[in-house]
């Protein structure tokens, strides 16, 4: 796909910074490339969107083609948290803890309208209206539920974002969250 086929290129432009050191930039680009192409997701799904994640992993829209079939159940080994489904008040601390326990670098994709804004349940007394109140989100994939191709598209958006971001701690330490 050409870059012009994607949406939201403006946000990407802001991210793109030129490194001072050519060698370091090259190394950083290489590492970013590695990270972008090796996103191991955390096995985490709360509701309907989880079924569509399963569908995305199934043979029809096989997401192992992107190298992300290595599903890890332990947050220590996962790079990507796809928040699929509604997050309720009781679940919020669990989500936060899981995110905290992931090893850096880590990325979050809010999959489906429930995760983005509370979706159909946003008026409920027990539903969190958007996970961005709890953890930082890299990519938003709207849909209810998100169809598998849309998830793949979202993952490709995330890959583009990772590829343009500076990935080495040398000279620039990532800020504590």
């Amino acid at each position, binding site marked *: 796909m050409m870059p012009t086929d994607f949406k939201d290129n403006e946000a990407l432009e802001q991210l793109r910074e030129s490194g001072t050191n050519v060698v370091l930039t090259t190394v950083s680009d290489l590492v970013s490339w590695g990270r972008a192409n090796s996103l191991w997701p*955390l*096995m*985490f*799904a*709360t*509701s*309907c969107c*989880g*079924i*569509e994640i*399963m*569908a995305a*992993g*199934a*043979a*029809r829209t096989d997401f192992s083609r992107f190298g992300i079939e290595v599903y890890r*159940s332990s*947050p220590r080994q996962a790079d990507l948290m796809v928040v699929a*489904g*509604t997050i*309720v*008040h*009781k*679940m*919020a*601390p*669990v989500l*936060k*803890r*899981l995110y905290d326990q992931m090893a850096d670098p880590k990325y979050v994709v809010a999959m489906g309208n429930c995760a983005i804004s509370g979706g*159909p*349940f946003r*008026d*409920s*007394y*027990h*539903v*969190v209206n958007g996970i961005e*109140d*709890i953890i930082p989100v890299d990519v938003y994939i709207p849909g*209810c*539920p998100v*169809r598998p191709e849309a998830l793949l598209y979202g993952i490709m958006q995330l890959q583009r974002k990772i590829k343009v971001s500076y990935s080495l701690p040398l000279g620039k330490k990532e800020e504590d969250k």
Partner: protein
Amino acid sequence: MTDQALLDKVLAFAPGKVAVEEYVNTYPALRVEADALHDLARFLKENEETDFDYLMCLSGVDWGANLGVVYHLRSTRHGHVLVLKTQTPERITPTIDTISDLWVGAEFHEREVYDMFGIRFTNHPDMRRIFMSDKWMGFPLRKDYQASNPLHLETEGAYEDEGIRKLASGKGKDETFIINFGPQHPSTHGVLRLVITLEGENVDQVQPHCGYIHRGIEKMCEHLTYQQIVHLTDRMDYLSAHINNEAVCLCVEKALQVEVPLRAQYIRTIMDELTRVASHLLFWTSFGMDLGATTCFFYSMRERDHILDIFEETCGARLVLSYVCPGGVMYDLHPNFQRRVKDFIREMRRRLPEYHRLLSGNVIFQGRSRNIGVLSHENAVSFGVTGPSGRASGWHCDVRKQDPYHVYSQVDFQEAIRTEGDVFARYMLRMDELETSLNIIEQLIDQIPSGDYAAKMKPVIRVPEGEYYQRVETARGDLGVWLVSQGDKFPYRLKFRSPGFSTLAALPHLCHGFKIADLIAISGSLDFVIPDIDR
């Protein structure tokens, strides 16, 4: 026994304490004084002639001045149904006797009522909140609920949890190996949390903790019109989304006494069965994965994708269809529908033997599933474990046979039954049902009559005052919808009796003494959908 005879019998048992309810009701209903409830319930359960052994539904309701509890009882032998309604005298410290000593399954339902309405059940073995955390303020389903609860972001230590303290008590702290399975665990099928005490590999006690996806659907429904409610029901048991939609619509149609066009009924029935096939295919997938046979996932998802294509072509969505509306269906079938369904049936018939060769016959699989987690017929009824899991214990509980809706009465099909009640029986029963469903679809697919696909409905539906109960058979069992209307365009109270919730109550009973791996197999074979449990 006729309904009148039944009512007379009960009235004679406790004169003065019981009155016949004159409200519009789907089933014969009685109003009982709170102090006479337990005796009456015991009488109804233990008397040979009444023999109400199945507690269909237990719901709380806020009547304004006081709080009520409503029991829907059913006799599996006689097939009659009775509704008991009782009220607390006041709403500050409401208490009612528990009936969980009579129907084991009531334990969870009563906890739910406590959680949502604050009614304490005396003599209840484990009176705790079930969905909300212990710190939660207020009882959400009360009409005057206004408490605002801030979002807590720190998980609390488990010993702060009342239920876990209970688990650990009695033994020294060092001797109990308490371990959490879930909320984030690959094989709790979502965000169910099971707290387990272990002795080596063996499971001693299991304590389910729910509410990690409690979305308050019942409360939300009280502020939505009947058309709007339909889209929320999709998201409860999203694997039988279409059947859930139907439950609400059927209930509304029953209340309004609308005649649904025959074409719509045929469409709904076929869609029902396709949904069931898709759900059972997903069961096969996830059950295989729970047992470590990952390849199953890909084979059955491949077939499931065909069904999703059929859905998407007609309904425009793959999973949560929102296809049913009160009076019929949203749009007509797609012209390709019949051809695609027939293709799918042919394909599925070709693949099913492969499934059996790959998994069902496998010696490891058989060893892991036979004689594991045996649920007796008696317990299945007492817990209210319906659907395939109940039928695997030899209980004829198929709503499609008992209370036929749509065109099920005109279809020739056998209710699949197995008697072993173990994991293998539950697994095989779903495989049997796959074939049954294919047969039903095959009988109907060429018979779809022409005509309207929906009855003409008013843009704003007002359901006449009264209480209505509708049961449908989802892929997981008996889904009941209890609708209380006060003539408004919103329901006064809408309760979903979800099959998964009752099934979950049986899980601790099934797992005791088995191994960790068996626990996974048992919970997999019960085929939970967590949002269906939590709602």
